[in-house]
Protein backbone atom coordinates (compact mmCIF):
# COMPACT_ATOMS: atom_id res chain seq x y z
CA UNK A 1 0.00 0.00 0.00
CA UNK A 2 1.19 3.48 -0.80
CA UNK A 3 0.00 6.75 0.63
CA UNK A 4 0.66 10.18 -0.77
CA UNK A 5 1.94 12.44 1.97
CA UNK A 6 1.05 16.04 1.15
CA UNK A 7 4.61 17.01 2.08
CA UNK A 8 6.74 14.06 1.01
CA UNK A 9 4.85 12.60 -1.95
CA UNK A 10 3.90 8.96 -2.47
CA UNK A 11 5.45 6.71 0.13
CA UNK A 12 5.35 3.10 1.24
CA UNK A 13 2.81 2.25 3.88
CA UNK A 14 5.58 1.18 6.27
CA UNK A 15 6.48 4.80 6.90
CA UNK A 16 3.03 5.46 8.35
CA UNK A 17 1.36 4.76 11.66
CA UNK A 18 -2.36 4.05 11.49
CA UNK A 19 -4.60 5.64 14.10
CA UNK A 20 -8.19 5.10 13.08
CA UNK A 21 -11.23 6.96 11.87
CA UNK A 22 -10.93 10.66 11.17
CA UNK A 23 -13.78 11.12 13.64
CA UNK A 24 -10.96 11.79 16.09
CA UNK A 25 -10.71 15.27 14.61
CA UNK A 26 -14.26 16.16 15.58
CA UNK A 27 -13.75 16.74 19.27
CA UNK A 28 -17.00 17.86 20.91
CA UNK A 29 -17.21 20.75 23.35
CA UNK A 30 -16.76 19.65 26.98
CA UNK A 31 -20.46 20.19 27.60
CA UNK A 32 -21.68 18.57 24.40
CA UNK A 33 -23.28 15.75 26.32
CA UNK A 34 -22.86 12.05 26.77
CA UNK A 35 -24.03 11.00 23.37
CA UNK A 36 -21.68 13.32 21.51
CA UNK A 37 -18.76 12.13 23.61
CA UNK A 38 -19.70 8.50 23.28
CA UNK A 39 -19.83 8.92 19.51
CA UNK A 40 -16.52 10.70 19.50
CA UNK A 41 -14.58 8.30 21.70
CA UNK A 42 -16.12 4.92 20.99
CA UNK A 43 -18.50 4.62 18.07
CA UNK A 44 -17.03 3.94 14.66
CA UNK A 45 -18.51 3.01 11.33
CA UNK A 46 -17.11 0.00 9.53
CA UNK A 47 -17.92 0.84 5.94
CA UNK A 48 -17.49 -1.42 2.96
CA UNK A 49 -16.55 1.45 0.73
CA UNK A 50 -15.25 4.94 1.29
CA UNK A 51 -13.75 5.71 4.66
CA UNK A 52 -11.64 8.50 6.09
CA UNK A 53 -8.91 7.71 8.52
CA UNK A 54 -5.89 9.19 10.20
CA UNK A 55 -2.33 8.22 9.49
CA UNK A 56 0.82 9.66 10.99
CA UNK A 57 3.87 9.99 8.80
CA UNK A 58 6.03 8.73 11.60
CA UNK A 59 8.84 7.43 9.40
CA UNK A 60 8.77 10.65 7.44
CA UNK A 61 7.86 14.27 8.04
CA UNK A 62 5.72 13.86 11.16
CA UNK A 63 2.51 15.12 9.57
CA UNK A 64 -0.89 13.76 10.55
CA UNK A 65 -2.78 12.96 7.39
CA UNK A 66 -6.42 12.31 6.62
CA UNK A 67 -6.62 9.52 4.07
CA UNK A 68 -9.83 8.96 2.16
CA UNK A 69 -9.82 5.45 0.78
CA UNK A 70 -12.04 2.62 -0.32
CA UNK A 71 -11.95 -0.42 1.94
CA UNK A 72 -13.21 -2.65 -0.86
CA UNK A 73 -10.95 -1.67 -3.75
CA UNK A 74 -8.14 -0.35 -1.56
CA UNK A 75 -8.02 2.72 -3.75
CA UNK A 76 -6.66 5.81 -2.03
CA UNK A 77 -8.95 8.60 -3.13
CA UNK A 78 -7.50 11.60 -1.38
CA UNK A 79 -4.95 12.63 1.23
CA UNK A 80 -4.80 15.92 3.09
CA UNK A 81 -3.08 17.35 6.12
CA UNK A 82 -5.06 16.92 9.31
CA UNK A 83 -4.21 20.52 10.17
CA UNK A 84 -6.03 21.66 7.05
CA UNK A 85 -8.76 19.06 6.78
CA UNK A 86 -12.30 20.22 7.30
CA UNK A 87 -14.10 17.30 8.77
Amino acid at each position, binding site marked *: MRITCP*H*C*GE*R*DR*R*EFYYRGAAVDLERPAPDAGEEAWDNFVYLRDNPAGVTRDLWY*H*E*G*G*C*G*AWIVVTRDTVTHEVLKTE*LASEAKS
Partner: protein
Amino acid sequence: MDKLIAKTACAGLLPLTVGSVSVSEEDVGAITSVSPLKGQKKALSDALKAAHGMAYPAANRATGKSGARAVWLGHSHAMLIGPEPDASLEKHAAVVDQSDAWAVVRLEGDRAEQVLARLVPVDLRSGHFKRGHTVRSLLFHMTASITRVGENAFQIMVFRSMAETLVHDLKRAMEGVATRG
Protein backbone atom coordinates in the same frame (compact mmCIF):
# COMPACT_ATOMS: atom_id res chain seq x y z
CA MET B 1 40.73 19.12 37.77
CA ASP B 2 38.18 17.01 35.93
CA LYS B 3 37.56 17.81 32.31
CA LEU B 4 34.79 16.65 30.01
CA ILE B 5 36.01 14.89 26.91
CA ALA B 6 33.90 14.90 23.77
CA LYS B 7 33.18 11.71 21.90
CA THR B 8 31.53 11.51 18.49
CA ALA B 9 28.49 9.34 17.82
CA CYS B 10 30.34 6.87 15.59
CA ALA B 11 33.64 6.84 17.49
CA GLY B 12 35.27 3.46 17.01
CA LEU B 13 32.76 2.40 14.37
CA LEU B 14 33.89 4.25 11.26
CA PRO B 15 35.31 4.69 8.65
CA LEU B 16 34.38 1.61 6.70
CA THR B 17 34.88 0.64 3.08
CA VAL B 18 33.30 -2.37 1.42
CA GLY B 19 33.90 -2.78 -2.27
CA SER B 20 33.56 0.56 -3.97
CA VAL B 21 31.43 2.19 -1.30
CA SER B 22 32.69 3.83 1.84
CA VAL B 23 31.06 5.36 4.84
CA SER B 24 32.65 7.84 7.20
CA GLU B 25 31.54 9.99 10.07
CA GLU B 26 31.08 13.65 9.24
CA ASP B 27 31.97 16.50 11.53
CA VAL B 28 29.39 18.95 10.26
CA GLY B 29 29.68 21.53 13.04
CA ALA B 30 26.59 22.75 14.83
CA ILE B 31 23.21 21.21 14.09
CA THR B 32 20.28 23.43 14.96
CA SER B 33 16.66 22.63 14.57
CA VAL B 34 14.63 25.63 13.45
CA SER B 35 10.87 25.56 13.48
CA PRO B 36 9.17 28.68 12.14
CA LEU B 37 6.65 30.42 14.35
CA LYS B 38 3.18 31.01 12.90
CA GLY B 39 3.38 33.20 9.81
CA GLN B 40 7.12 33.62 10.19
CA LYS B 41 8.44 31.29 7.52
CA LYS B 42 9.24 34.06 5.08
CA ALA B 43 10.84 36.22 7.75
CA LEU B 44 12.81 33.24 8.99
CA SER B 45 13.96 32.50 5.46
CA ASP B 46 15.14 36.09 5.10
CA ALA B 47 16.93 35.95 8.42
CA LEU B 48 18.60 32.69 7.41
CA LYS B 49 19.68 34.25 4.14
CA ALA B 50 21.06 37.31 5.82
CA ALA B 51 22.86 35.45 8.55
CA HIS B 52 23.89 32.21 6.90
CA GLY B 53 23.40 32.66 3.16
CA MET B 54 20.63 30.17 2.52
CA ALA B 55 16.85 30.24 2.37
CA TYR B 56 14.54 28.11 4.48
CA PRO B 57 14.27 24.91 2.43
CA ALA B 58 11.12 23.77 0.71
CA ALA B 59 9.83 20.28 1.46
CA ASN B 60 12.28 17.56 0.44
CA ARG B 61 15.02 20.04 -0.36
CA ALA B 62 18.27 21.25 1.15
CA THR B 63 19.63 24.75 0.65
CA GLY B 64 23.11 26.20 1.08
CA LYS B 65 26.26 24.24 0.54
CA SER B 66 28.77 22.14 2.37
CA GLY B 67 29.67 23.89 5.61
CA ALA B 68 26.43 25.84 5.85
CA ARG B 69 23.39 23.93 4.85
CA ALA B 70 19.71 24.03 5.72
CA VAL B 71 18.06 20.64 5.38
CA TRP B 72 14.30 20.20 5.44
CA LEU B 73 13.48 17.90 8.31
CA GLY B 74 9.74 17.58 8.52
CA HIS B 75 6.37 19.23 8.42
CA SER B 76 7.50 22.08 10.64
CA HIS B 77 11.26 21.78 10.95
CA ALA B 78 14.50 22.29 9.13
CA MET B 79 18.05 21.74 10.32
CA LEU B 80 20.70 24.39 10.05
CA ILE B 81 23.90 22.44 9.70
CA GLY B 82 27.32 24.03 10.09
CA PRO B 83 27.28 27.49 11.61
CA GLU B 84 26.27 28.42 15.12
CA PRO B 85 22.77 29.84 14.71
CA ASP B 86 22.53 33.59 14.55
CA ALA B 87 20.52 35.13 17.39
CA SER B 88 18.21 36.81 14.84
CA LEU B 89 16.63 33.44 14.06
CA GLU B 90 15.01 33.21 17.47
CA LYS B 91 12.64 36.01 16.62
CA HIS B 92 11.02 33.88 13.95
CA ALA B 93 11.54 30.32 15.03
CA ALA B 94 11.90 27.84 17.82
CA VAL B 95 15.61 27.25 17.78
CA VAL B 96 16.92 24.09 19.41
CA ASP B 97 20.48 22.85 19.61
CA GLN B 98 20.67 19.33 18.17
CA SER B 99 24.40 19.18 17.59
CA ASP B 100 24.71 16.04 19.70
CA ALA B 101 21.40 14.41 18.78
CA TRP B 102 22.40 12.92 15.46
CA ALA B 103 24.90 10.50 14.05
CA VAL B 104 25.96 12.04 10.75
CA VAL B 105 27.69 9.92 8.14
CA ARG B 106 28.66 10.27 4.53
CA LEU B 107 28.03 7.34 2.22
CA GLU B 108 30.01 7.60 -0.94
CA GLY B 109 30.85 5.49 -3.97
CA ASP B 110 29.61 4.63 -7.42
CA ARG B 111 27.22 2.05 -5.97
CA ALA B 112 26.03 4.07 -2.99
CA GLU B 113 22.58 4.29 -4.60
CA GLN B 114 22.39 0.50 -4.68
CA VAL B 115 23.35 0.32 -1.03
CA LEU B 116 20.53 2.67 -0.11
CA ALA B 117 18.11 0.74 -2.32
CA ARG B 118 18.57 -2.11 0.15
CA LEU B 119 17.55 0.04 3.08
CA VAL B 120 15.37 2.97 2.09
CA PRO B 121 11.85 2.61 0.63
CA VAL B 122 12.22 5.69 -1.57
CA ASP B 123 13.59 6.01 -5.10
CA LEU B 124 16.98 7.64 -4.55
CA ARG B 125 18.35 7.14 -8.05
CA SER B 126 20.00 10.23 -9.46
CA GLY B 127 17.27 10.78 -12.04
CA HIS B 128 14.75 11.22 -9.24
CA PHE B 129 16.84 12.31 -6.31
CA LYS B 130 19.28 14.99 -7.31
CA ARG B 131 21.90 16.96 -5.47
CA GLY B 132 20.10 19.21 -3.02
CA HIS B 133 17.25 16.79 -2.58
CA THR B 134 16.55 15.35 0.85
CA VAL B 135 14.09 12.85 2.30
CA ARG B 136 12.80 11.92 5.67
CA SER B 137 12.25 8.21 5.49
CA LEU B 138 13.30 4.95 7.03
CA LEU B 139 16.74 3.43 6.84
CA PHE B 140 15.84 -0.21 7.39
CA HIS B 141 13.92 0.29 10.66
CA MET B 142 15.30 3.65 11.78
CA THR B 143 13.91 7.04 10.95
CA ALA B 144 16.52 8.90 8.99
CA SER B 145 17.31 12.07 7.09
CA ILE B 146 19.04 11.41 3.78
CA THR B 147 20.42 14.16 1.57
CA ARG B 148 22.28 13.86 -1.70
CA VAL B 149 25.41 15.93 -1.28
CA GLY B 150 27.31 14.82 -4.37
CA GLU B 151 27.04 12.82 -7.54
CA ASN B 152 27.76 9.64 -5.60
CA ALA B 153 27.56 10.93 -2.07
CA PHE B 154 24.81 11.01 0.52
CA GLN B 155 24.62 12.53 3.97
CA ILE B 156 22.73 10.21 6.29
CA MET B 157 21.54 11.21 9.73
CA VAL B 158 19.95 8.97 12.35
CA PHE B 159 19.50 9.40 16.09
CA ARG B 160 22.80 9.30 17.88
CA SER B 161 21.88 6.29 20.04
CA MET B 162 21.37 4.22 16.90
CA ALA B 163 24.85 4.76 15.47
CA GLU B 164 25.79 1.11 15.93
CA THR B 165 22.68 -0.10 14.19
CA LEU B 166 23.27 2.40 11.39
CA VAL B 167 26.76 1.08 10.79
CA HIS B 168 25.54 -2.52 11.08
CA ASP B 169 22.76 -2.01 8.57
CA LEU B 170 24.92 -0.06 6.14
CA LYS B 171 27.67 -2.66 6.31
CA ARG B 172 25.27 -5.46 5.60
CA ALA B 173 23.84 -3.66 2.58
CA MET B 174 27.30 -2.69 1.37
CA GLU B 175 28.37 -6.33 1.48
CA GLY B 176 25.29 -7.36 -0.44
CA VAL B 177 26.13 -4.87 -3.15
CA ALA B 178 29.88 -5.48 -3.20
CA THR B 179 29.50 -9.23 -3.68
CA ARG B 180 27.36 -8.76 -6.77
CA GLY B 181 29.06 -8.88 -10.15
